Structure formats: C-alpha cells, structure tokens
C-alpha cells in the first residue's frame, strides 16, 4: 500500500514537473498522460474504481486526444516550441516562482492542520464499485448529473460559435 503510494506519487510528480518544464507541446501531453495514469492507480488505491476508469478513458483518452488534435492542427507548419530561455530569467519569472512557492507553503501549513488519521479501515460493503457509485449518482445526485449534460451542451455550442464559422 505504502510502496504503491510512493511509486505512483513519484510518477505523478515527475509527470507534473515534465508538463511544466518541457518545451514541446507533444512531450508535455505525454508527461500529462503519465501523470493521469499514476493518479488513476492512486484512485484505485482509494477504492474509487469508477473514477479510476473515468480518469483513464475521459482524461487520458478523450481530453488528451483533444489536446493532441489542436497541437497537430496549430503546429503543422510552424515550430510551436517556446524559445528556450534560461531557468528563472527576468523579474516576472522570479515573481511567478515566488508566488507558487508561497502557495505551496500556505497549502502545506493548511495540510498540517488536518488531523493525522488513517484511512477508514472498515468500508461499507461495495464502496466505490461501479454499482454503488452509479446508484449514488443516478438516485441521490441525479439533478447535478443532469446539470452536467447542460454544461457540456453549452460548451459544445460555445466551441461551435467560436471556431465553427468560416468567417469568424
């Protein structure tokens, strides 16, 4: 359990650092997929079976393919990579890194106030299985579930309005 967490946590952090550090968008997408798969394994270790599957199919599958399509569409003829700059050059980079560091410290302080506790040893039977999750989603939370359909519909209409017309 702990070994699984350490390995997957390190892979997830490595993927995230890769997304921040790499210059080529395709490499960034691959690093992000690595991050997502490590997180999916962690979701499994948290008894969230359905969420792990969704993480791989929707996130690592559909959303990342969308990214790849846009990268392929936009960068077919020109070099997409940001010009390589030195690490933390210029005042704005230093300021951004400082803000991120402050964010990390503040969040870690907040985590320090979470009471140290193990994860519940006794689970309700069937917790996190697809059947139990589906029951919670479609019985208890059916209205938010219907709202997501509306959100996705608005997103699709918005995308068509933004890029669908020939004369934008």
């Amino acid at each position, binding site marked *: *359990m702990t070994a699984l*967490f350490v390995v997957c*946590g390190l892979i997830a*952090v490595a993927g*995230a650092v890769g*997304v*921040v550090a790499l210059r080529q*968008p395709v490499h960034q*997408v691959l690093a*992000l997929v690595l*991050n997502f798969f490590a*997180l999916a394994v*962690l979701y499994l270790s*948290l*008894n*969230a079976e359905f*969420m792990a599957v*969704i*993480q791989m199919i929707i*996130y690592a599958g*559909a*959303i990342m393919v969308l*990214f790849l399509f*846009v*990268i392929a*569409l936009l960068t077919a003829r020109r070099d*997409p990579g*940001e010009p390589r700059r030195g690490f933390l050059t210029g005042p704005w980079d230093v300021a951004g*890194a400082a*803000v*991120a*560091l402050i*964010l*990390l410290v503040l*969040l*870690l302080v907040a*985590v320090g106030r979470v009471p*140290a*506790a*193990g*994860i*519940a040893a006794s689970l*309700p039977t069937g*917790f*996190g299985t697809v059947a*139990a999750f589906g029951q*919670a*989603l479609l019985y*208890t*939370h059916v209205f*938010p579930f219907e709202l*997501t359909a509306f959100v*996705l519909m*608005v*997103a699709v209409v*918005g*995308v068509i309005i*933004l*890029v669908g017309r020939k004369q*934008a």
Partner: protein
Amino acid sequence: MDNTILLYIGLSVILFAIGGAGVLLRRSPLAILMCVEIMWNAGNLAFLTFARKWASAGHDGQVFAFLVITVAAAEVAIGLAIIVTIFRHREKVDVDEVRELHG
C-alpha cells in the same frame, strides 16, 4: 500513528503547487491549459481521499469528483477553441501579447 490521509493530501497539495507554478511561469496558452489540468486533478485527488476517509457517509465526494471531470472537459473544449481562434489571428501566441479582448 497512521497518517495515510496526510500523505494523499500532501501529494495533492504538491501537484496543485506544481500546476500553479506552471500557470505562472509558462507563456504558451497550451502549456497553461495543461497546468490547469494538473490543478484540477490535484483537487480531485483531495476529493477522493476525503471520500475514502469518510466512506460511511456515502459517495458524495466521488460524485463531486465526477462532476469536476465533466466541468474540466467543458473547460478544455472552450479553452482550446479560444486558443485556436487566437492562433488564426497571430503567428505565434504568447499570453503576454494578447491584450485586446475583441475577437
């Protein structure tokens, strides 16, 4: 003392900060969008950790994480559409150079 929950929440915080650093440091809108994805997922990890911790209370945390994923999908679709629109008007995109709000 078992402090598994702190490990998971700590990892979530670290991923969130890495994503935030990327949003602040990168110039390419595609990179920024991907770093925002890291931040969404860090939040999801925290949701699922707390859902596991208070499993006896039901699946509310997992349902919320599911809703977060759908909203993230919508956000990615809109964000990429905006990036494509900006790319049509300019040769290279640097978020610092996009100042005007009209299409």
